[in-house]
């Protein structure tokens, strides 16, 4: 497990990342303290490359979670940490400048308290199946402009599905709903919320559209914009297979950003998998920033950094590893940490999000350090199965 942090003031400058060693055999002495200066220009990995199709879901090495039943509520006092910690109010969301570190981080880290609040029992999420992103439902959370927590999920009713956004105190019949859609992402806006929507076809590979809907504070749909909608998945250039995405909102510009994995049919007759990144203005007009951002793009994260949006992706081919850029027209797949990958849907790592530390962005990830990160199984379709396995 580790974290990399990346300077925001020097775009290509020194960065700090925190990483975590994964797997069964953490090597001794794996903690490598300190951040390294990164010199030179960014490597532009992945332009023009394509990787083969993936199976349903497309996430690499993401272990399922069991999540057994338990008590409805509880409190876990944070172990460690001592005393008063840091006073004053917490920083809002992200951002905010960090002062000099306290004498000991243990003094700064107050023990936490945890509470669990069940939502209305009528708000039942569709739990999926093995062919639809695993059996664990997605329940993304957002906080609106009034400070109210929102929870999103996909609801099944007979043979139809809807994307639902519920407030903490919503009843089943008062939650906001967008019919005939699966929820792919959730964010709050200055006057309501927005949802990344996918074709609710339970076979991910068969999905033919993706969309974004913006909802007013009363739950009404202000607009719904299709990012793409393919008549079929056979014609060259058709997009489909939307999965594993994120949606973010920049209040300053009243703009939404959608970032997710999808597939596209190429002239080799194969549906390849890659990333899709677009912005939508206040009126719902889409600007495609990249219709092919990383290939494969196995997992995605967004972080609103003041007026900008930071993106990270996880690639197994073009490129291999964790790549970063700010969302803009034709973003680059700048690799910030190389990971071993097999080019057919697996990498030696998982993303862990992004954290705004003020002057830096921390990018936690998991990897198994007993595997050489330059291990290369070749380029599809010439994959060395002995290595890939």
């Amino acid at each position: 497990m580790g974290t990399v942090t990346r300077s925001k003031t020097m775009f290509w400058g020194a960065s700090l990342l925190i990483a975590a060693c994964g797997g069964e055999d953490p090597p001794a002495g794996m903690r490598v303290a300190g951040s390294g200066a990164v010199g030179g220009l960014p490597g532009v990995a992945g332009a023009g490359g394509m990787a083969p199709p993936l199976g349903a879901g497309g996430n690499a090495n993401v272990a399922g979670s069991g999540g057994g039943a338990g008590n409805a509520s509880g409190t876990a006092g944070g172990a460690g940490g001592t005393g008063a910690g840091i006073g004053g109010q917490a920083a809002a969301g992200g951002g905010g400048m960090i002062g000099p570190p306290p004498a000991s981080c243990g003094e700064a880290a107050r023990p936490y308290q945890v509470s669990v609040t069940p939502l209305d029992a009528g708000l039942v999420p569709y739990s999926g199946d093995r062919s639809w992103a695993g059996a664990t439902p997605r329940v993304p959370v957002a906080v609106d402009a009034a400070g109210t927590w929102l929870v999103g999920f996909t609801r099944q009713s007979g043979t139809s599905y809807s994307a639902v956004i519920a407030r903490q105190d919503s009843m089943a019949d008062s939650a906001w709903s967008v019919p005939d859609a699966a929820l792919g992402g959730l964010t709050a806006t200055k006057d309501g919320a927005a949802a990344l929507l996918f074709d609710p076809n339970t076979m991910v590979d068969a999905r033919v559209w993706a969309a974004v809907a913006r909802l007013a504070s009363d739950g009404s749909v202000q607009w719904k914009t299709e990012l793409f909608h393919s008549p079929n998945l056979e014609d060259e250039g058709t997009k489909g297979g939307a999965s594993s995405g994120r949606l973010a909102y920049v209040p300053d510009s009243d703009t939404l950003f959608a970032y997710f994995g999808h597939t596209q049919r190429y002239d080799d007759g194969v549906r390849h998998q890659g990333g899709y990144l677009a912005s939508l203005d206040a009126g719902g007009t889409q600007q495609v920033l990249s219709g092919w951002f990383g290939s494969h793009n196995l997992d995605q994260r967004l972080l609103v950094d003041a007026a900008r949006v930071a993106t990270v992706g996880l690639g197994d081919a073009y490129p291999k590893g964790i790549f970063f850029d700010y969302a803009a027209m034709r973003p680059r797949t700048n690799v910030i940490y190389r990971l071993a990958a097999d080019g057919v849907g697996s990498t030696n790592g998982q993303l862990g999000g992004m954290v705004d530390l003020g002057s830096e962005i921390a990018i936690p990830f998991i990897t198994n350090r007993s595997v050489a990160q330059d291990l290369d199984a070749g380029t599809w379709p010439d994959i060395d199965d002995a290595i890939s396995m």
Partner: protein
Amino acid sequence: MGDLSPVWLMPAPAAGARLGSLKAARYGDAGLILIAWAENTGNSRMPSSTYFTMVVDRTGAVCQPKTALPAAQAFTPGDDLIAHPDGSIAWANVQSNRIQLVKLVP
């Protein structure tokens, strides 16, 4: 850009456990990071996960040690920890078909 230099953490997973579902959020106002992850055992038919947190600073120093979360406070693999302007951090899970909002206050 090239590789950045990671700060490696030592979550010390249980024997045979695989790390997964890594999450992170800013913790408090002193530049600390809440790290949360699952340790998975078993197989696809009989999976079992245990959830943990740890608070670190940007150098990787451990400010709060690895702490297990009760099962009711589990998180899902595909979603993020979200920070509230008041400093609290939340996520949701599903227990017995019921959605639960989990709030952590530093």
